């Protein structure tokens, strides 16, 4: 086990809800964005002098812009249904990580400035002035939420803490206190085209290397095309897929599928990134600007379809928002959904009999599947509700002989976040990430004990990076976490008659 300066949650055989421990995570906060990172996104470089008035003004603006925020501020009855649902609360015991308490950090300010009861009877309804301390709390705890929406499943009014977190972060950024990790990355997308800051030339080299690697490995010419005009499919995938482990094995899997099915496809150097951290910081303007590159690339390359690789929040933005932000897509082939998830595409090809598998290739594995939060609770696959749960599992079962699910309340719509989503996948938040992963790790531990599970497949770049990092803290192998399309790629029979 790694040497660390904080207590790692003990993984028990059954899930437990901890007693609250006030202030347990008050010391945890990500690095604040530097001036350059802020200004590149249109935010002030540092905390502005009139931050109080600016913050209240911004809150007023957001309350008038998002019905969700206004309704959610008013509707909570403090029933407590959400209090034991957040992985960060379960992993840290800090009561401010209970969804309702996280919302209340903003709601108590909302009440003070925007409601009759809070203006005249603040003590009675728990309303407070916006002070420096409150702002500090916001910064700390709105960066201890991965915007995973698990709480929104269980709230009787559908209150989604992610909406409140996003508003909180946008207010913070607009008064000069943005988060370094997310804002720096968005800046890189604007400047270079992807989160990792991988320039076009390096990307082209990486893809060439991948072609050689696959050729050496299986002696088949699987192509990884870049900027091919007139290709049918534009694949937009998280840039981690280009070289991070285990992501890259997923990319190889997509390429093998396209190769075998005879799909003409290309990547784009202009839109070499599916991720859209504009979502995380709650900035619709930045989200739109990041997304627009995809529309531009699709038009430039003259493709007929857009397929999105394995990435959770990217799929949320693509599925739920692209049509609004960068649509309509009347220039694409109406026979295919726009956008299409790589799993939808692969599943269709399996259904058509275009792919044959040698499942024995994966017989060394007993696989379980980690539903990613944004795919599960903020999007869909296929044409029926819940298709996002069925399709990846069907793909895994088509490629593997041994598949088992984790405990029912920890999968599908009740899935636990990996602990690194929502712009928290940064080393300055390792304590939070390790602790926040514990509910998922606990459920994983159960199937390891009961079924001898060896691997957990995922369809999200953040989940894959997060588990690679945190599983060793729990004495689990970092390479347990794999891409769904790695399983596909490893078992796919290439070159055989279709």
């Amino acid at each position: 086990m790694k040497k660390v300066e904080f207590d790692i949650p003990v993984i028990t055989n059954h899930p437990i809800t901890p007693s609250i421990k006030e202030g347990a995570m008050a010391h945890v906060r990500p690095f604040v964005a530097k001036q350059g990172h802020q200004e590149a996104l249109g935010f002030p470089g540092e905390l502005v002098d009139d931050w109080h008035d600016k913050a209240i003004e911004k809150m007023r603006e957001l309350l008038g812009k998002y019905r969700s925020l206004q309704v959610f501020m008013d509707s909570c009855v403090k029933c407590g249904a959400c209090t034991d649902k957040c992985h960060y609360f379960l992993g840290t015991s800090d009561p401010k990580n209970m969804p309702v308490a996280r919302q209340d950090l903003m709601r108590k300010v909302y009440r003070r400035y925007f409601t009759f009861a809070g203006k005249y009877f603040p003590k009675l309804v728990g309303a407070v002035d916006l002070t420096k301390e409150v702002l500090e709390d916001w910064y700390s705890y709105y960066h201890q939420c991965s915007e995973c929406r698990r709480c929104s499943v269980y709230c009787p009014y559908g209150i989604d803490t992610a909406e409140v977190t996003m508003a909180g972060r946008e207010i913070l950024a607009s008064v000069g206190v943005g988060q370094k990790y997310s804002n720096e990355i968005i800046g890189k997308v604007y400047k270079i085209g992807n989160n990792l800051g991988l320039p076009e030339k390096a990307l082209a080299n990486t893809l060439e290397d991948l072609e050689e690697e696959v050729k050496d490995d299986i002696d088949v010419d699987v192509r990884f095309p870049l900027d091919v005009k007139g290709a049918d499919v534009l694949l937009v995938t998280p840039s981690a897929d280009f070289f991070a482990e285990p992501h890259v094995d997923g990319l190889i899997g997509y390429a093998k599928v396209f190769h075998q099915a005879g799909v003409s496809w290309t990547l784009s150097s202009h839109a070499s990134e599916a991720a859209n951290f504009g979502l995380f910081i709650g900035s619709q303007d930045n989200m739109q600007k990041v997304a627009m590159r995809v529309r531009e690339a699709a038009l430039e390359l003259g493709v007929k379809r857009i397929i999105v690789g394995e990435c959770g929040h990217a799929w949320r933005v693509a599925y739920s928002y692209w049509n609004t932000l960068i649509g309509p897509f009347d220039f694409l082939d109406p026979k295919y959904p726009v956008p299409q998830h790589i799993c939808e595409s692969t599943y269709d090809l399996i259904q058509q009999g275009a792919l044959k598998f040698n499942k024995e290739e994966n017989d060394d594995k007993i696989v379980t599947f980690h539903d990613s939060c944004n795919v599960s609770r903020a999007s869909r696959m296929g044409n029926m509700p819940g298709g996002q749960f069925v399709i990846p599992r069907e793909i895994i079962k088509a490629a593997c002989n041994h598949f088992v699910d984790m405990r029912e309340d920890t999968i599908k719509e009740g899935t636990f976040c990996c602990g690194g989503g929502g712009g928290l996948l940064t080393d300055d938040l390792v304590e939070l990430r390790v602790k926040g992963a514990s509910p998922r790790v606990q459920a994983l531990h159960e199937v390891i004990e009961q079924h001898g599970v060896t691997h957990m497949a995922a369809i999200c770049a953040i989940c894959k990076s997060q588990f690679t990092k945190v599983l060793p803290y729990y004495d689990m192998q970092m390479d347990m976490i794999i891409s769904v399309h790695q399983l596909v790629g490893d078992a796919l029979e290439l070159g055989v008659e279709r």
Partner: protein
Amino acid sequence: MSFLSYLYAGLFYCAAMVMVVGVGRKVMVYTRIPAPLKIPTTPAPTTRFGVVGRMLREVVFFESLFKSSKWTWLFGWAFHFGLLLALIRHLRYFTEPVWSWVAFLQSAGIYGGYAMVFGLLGLWGRRFFVDRVRYISAPSDHLMLALILAIAGSGLLMKYVWHTDVVALKAFALGLLWFNWAPLPSDPILLIHLGLVICLMFVFPISKLLHVPGLFFSPTRNQVDDSREQRHAPTSV
């Protein structure tokens, strides 16, 4: 007619006005604010018809709360369903002749009163005994439970202990409704019961009771999951 009768009549009119105008204003605010992005909590229905079903399940059965916590669901549902039955029972004071289905549900209304007390005690108990719920409870959360519990309790006391002149009460209620005022019986327990109800009506639009209209406007519940098929038009703000 006594001063007290006029006072209560006046307060009832004011309270009704505040409640209707206050909630109406909120509903207008909710309607006016755009929902610029598609954010249904999925899996969500893919048709408008399906969304009506989802909302019905939320409103009638508290579906999401049931998924969350069986105890909270039991107490919460018992309270709300009991409240509905009790409200239906009270329609007898406002209808002449009493509608047959209201007459039919009279004794159910009594059980509704019991269910309310049971549910409210359970919900209140959680605020003391569950550390997480204790942490999130503000004084107003306790007061709201106390207020409604006192309303239910005083109502049951009138049924079983200190009876009031229900015929005269009905004349007062109908008088309010048709602006043909009649005296209010002056039993203290009745005055307390009605006074608390007036309080509740006053605070309705400025309290968490806004969860009633709020639920219907919650985008995570009332949006159709069809963002690829139907373009959700951007709002210009």
